[in-house]
């Protein structure tokens, strides 16, 4: 972790009692869900992190506390550094406050995380699904959602698979 990161990580540690880890010249800082909006506001206003590059989540299925990690990847153009914030979230009724007031990118990105993982963002102006069809149940990128693949057609299931392709007669 180089000097430019040290100051920022120290400030985050003091204010939010955050832990961090570093791996191959990247710094990941763990922040709690209630403090995330304050942390993002601090980084945006004081330390000039203008660009929210990515907002995504990961599912660690069999363990329920925490089950999800919501990942925020920030970049600063002026200082040319990147920083990653991770928010651990529990499995039942996962909720995180929204970051749309700080970065406008978060509007669509949080809709995508809700669509794929089912994590609710409190205070979001437009909480609808964005990529899946309307009326779809379930959240595809969770580990307990099946991939839904079609099995290869052998002689024992030849008719089952043909039933689905009703127009392929010619």
């Amino acid at each position: 972790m180089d000097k430019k990161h040290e100051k920022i990580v120290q400030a985050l540690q003091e204010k939010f009692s955050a832990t961090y880890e570093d791996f191959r010249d990247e710094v990941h800082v763990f922040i709690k869900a209630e403090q995330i909006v304050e942390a993002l506001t601090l980084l945006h206003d004081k330390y000039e992190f203008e660009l929210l590059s990515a907002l995504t989540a990961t599912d660690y299925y069999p363990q329920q506390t925490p089950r999800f990690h919501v990942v925020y990847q920030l970049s600063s153009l002026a200082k040319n550094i990147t920083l990653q914030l991770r928010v651990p979230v529990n499995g039942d009724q996962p909720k995180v406050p929204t970051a749309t007031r700080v970065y406008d990118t978060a509007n669509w990105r949080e809709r995508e995380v809700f669509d794929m993982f089912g994590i609710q963002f409190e205070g979001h102006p437009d909480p609808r699904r964005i990529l899946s069809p309307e009326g779809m149940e379930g959240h595809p990128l969770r580990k307990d959602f099946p991939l839904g693949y079609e099995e290869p057609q052998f002689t024992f299931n030849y008719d089952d698979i043909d039933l689905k392709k009703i127009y392929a007669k010619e």
Partner: protein
Amino acid sequence: MGVEQKLGDMGIVTTKLEELVNWSRTNAMWPMLFGLACCAIEMMAAQASHYDMSRFGMELMRASPRQSDLMIVAGRVSRKMAPVVRRLYDQMPEPKWAIAMGDCASCGGVFNNYAILQGVDEIIPVDVYVAGCPPRPEALIHGVVTLYEKVKGEKFKDLAVVK
């Protein structure tokens, strides 16, 4: 359509009439612009100057389904898009044909998961399948010529049933 059905069995008049009708259908078949994903770029390349599809009768691509004869489904069809494809196919007037271009439209291609239809023949009847990921423009032209062979072999009495 009605007159030909009644003329179905008149010997040499019917065969000559069939030849004329099929010849005119193949020489000016206009496809509908329906490029969904990567195969659409190869379809555009087939329409451009290097591999020219205009020499086969496809002078322009009509965006409106009401004015086109052929639907080239180029690209992967997702579950959200499937009702739209069906509705567009229904809006095309008879006679109409469909080509499934590429692996994703023929059988689901590389993507074997919850979000992609495993072949567009789950929702519309397909006449010619063109394989490739994406198929070369020459392969697409070969598919179009195969469709022309099929159309030239169509007889009036087969068309008497409404599809």
